[in-house]
């Protein structure tokens, strides 16, 4: 047991947990005011349902020894997940229970990320069932393949903090969810504008803050590698933001605030798989390069009928893919002590990274499709058209985000 490592991982876990509320503000500001609470609840509710699913079963499926393909149920209900070091799971110098909590925060935010594709029309109950099952059926196996000693790790694919497991995974699920749930009734025709850009900026800023726990915490120790991951997490999004600003100016003559918030997220996503593997200067290059494909995807997506409402595919799917591939380019063994990328004489690494990304897209896309179709047999996936028109805050939650007229309401007698 190492006290410095334990102290750092306690902080890192709290930082990553904060990313889910941050995502709620990011997504919540991007929708119309009649759906603000519903959109934010889609993130917040993951803290409860996915968090519990993880403790009861998900952690064991993801990180118990099991096979190359899946963990087992030996740690279900946190059996054996105590205060001693992790031991056989991953040899760490922190309490096993803390490692479980750290991993839980990743699962929670990954499930919540998907909501961006289906906001403003998905029925809340169907969404709830979907992300809870998704965390067990899609996330847990994928986490096992990469971090639990599964076959992608054996193949030599490297993913420092979850570019593939978290972002490509969520991006593929989001693409499928947008397709299966279908576009918003008024998509394409009317103006659907963000109702509160300041909260979008607040969310992006808090995501960046929490992401230091996400990436530097993925060193799983208070180590030099944690320091490296911290620095790359600071520089890559900065570079993305600079390039994005120029792209905005080129396209419309003005640097936009929603664009800046998006750029920060894209840069954070892209550096995630590479954070503890590449040099700070490489991180700047990676962040700068990552701006372009995501920017183009945003523009092209908006011209299609795919209503990935908050562009999860462009930010997380494409950003995660670019980051995973560039990890195979920029990785520097003299820093990470594990492997080199193409720039350091190991071009093969890019292919391995590509294979892992492709696996994530196929598995997550396929399983998410099946899951949504099965849930759709039991619960309608969409809110009714009239509920969608009124807004999901009132119809799904019985609340409004902004109720200025206090005199407009009266307490129901006896309640």
């Amino acid at each position, binding site marked *: 047991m190492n006290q410095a490592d334990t102290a750092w991982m306690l902080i890192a876990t709290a930082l990553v947990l904060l990313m889910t509320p941050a995502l709620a503000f990011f997504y919540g500001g991007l929708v119309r005011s*009649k759906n603000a609470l519903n959109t934010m609840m889609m993130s917040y509710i993951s803290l409860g349902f996915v968090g519990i699913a993880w403790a009861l079963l998900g952690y064991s499926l993801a990180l118990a020894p099991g096979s190359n393909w899946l963990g087992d149920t030996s740690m279900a209900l946190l059996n054996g997940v105590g205060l001693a070091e992790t031991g056989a799971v991953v040899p760490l110098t922190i309490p096993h229970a803390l490692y479980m909590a750290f991993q839980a925060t990743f699962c929670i935010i990954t499930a919540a990320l998907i909501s961006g594709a289906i906001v403003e029309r998905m029925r809340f109950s169907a969404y709830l069932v979907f992300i809870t099952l998704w965390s067990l059926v899609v996330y847990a196996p994928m986490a096992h393949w990469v971090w639990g000693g599964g076959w992608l790790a054996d193949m030599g694919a490297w993913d420092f903090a979850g570019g593939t497991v978290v972002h490509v995974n969520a991006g593929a699920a989001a693409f499928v969810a947008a397709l299966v749930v279908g576009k918003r009734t*008024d998509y394409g*025709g*009317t*103006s659907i504008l963000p109702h509160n850009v300041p909260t979008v900026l607040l969310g992006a800023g808090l995501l960046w803050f929490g992401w230091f726990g996400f990436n530097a915490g993925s060193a799983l120790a208070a180590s030099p590698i944690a320091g490296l991951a911290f620095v790359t997490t600071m520089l890559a999004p900065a570079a993305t933001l600079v390039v994005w600003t120029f792209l905005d100016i080129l396209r419309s003559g003005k640097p936009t605030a929603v664009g800046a918030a998006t750029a920060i997220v894209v840069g954070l996503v892209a550096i995630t798989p590479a954070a503890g593997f590449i040099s700070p200067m490489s991180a700047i290059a990676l962040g700068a390069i990552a701006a372009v494909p995501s920017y183009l995807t945003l523009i092209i997506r908006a011209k299609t009928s795919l209503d990935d409402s908050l562009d999860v595919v462009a930010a997380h799917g494409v950003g995660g893919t670019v980051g995973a591939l560039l990890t195979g380019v920029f990785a520097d063994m003299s820093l990470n002590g594990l492997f080199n990328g193409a720039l350091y004489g190991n071009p093969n690494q890019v292919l391995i990274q590509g294979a892992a990304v492709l696996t994530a897209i196929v598995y997550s896309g396929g399983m998410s499709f099946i899951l949504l179709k099965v849930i759709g047999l039991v619960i309608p996936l969409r809110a009714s058209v*009239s509920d969608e*028109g*009124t807004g999901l805050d*009132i119809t799904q939650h*019985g*609340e*409004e985000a902004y*109720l200025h*007229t206090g005199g*407009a*309401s*009266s*307490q*129901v007698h006896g*309640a």
Partner: protein
Amino acid sequence: MKLIKSIVRPNKVDDVKDALARLNISGMTVTEVRGHGKQKGHTAIYRGKEYNVSLLPKMEIEIVVPDSIADEAIKAIVQAARTGEIGDGRVFVLPVLESYRIRTGEKES
């Protein structure tokens, strides 16, 4: 000249705007309002207390048109804003005595 004040569902504003644009009526003022007619409102729950929110969010669209096209405009608004359910809103028509353009100070007819 007539002032046509329409109170419609928030998600019908774009439809009404498009319908009016087809009649070449482009100027309008839109205000977020709350109110109720026959619609009962909804029950909101905050921290265990139930409230009846009787004033619901609506949008008010004001346009001023020559008498000659008022009927046509009213018909277009009603058609565009209707869902057939309670809560579709109202259209009020008022006479306008005079109208001035602020930039030039000229009186319009």
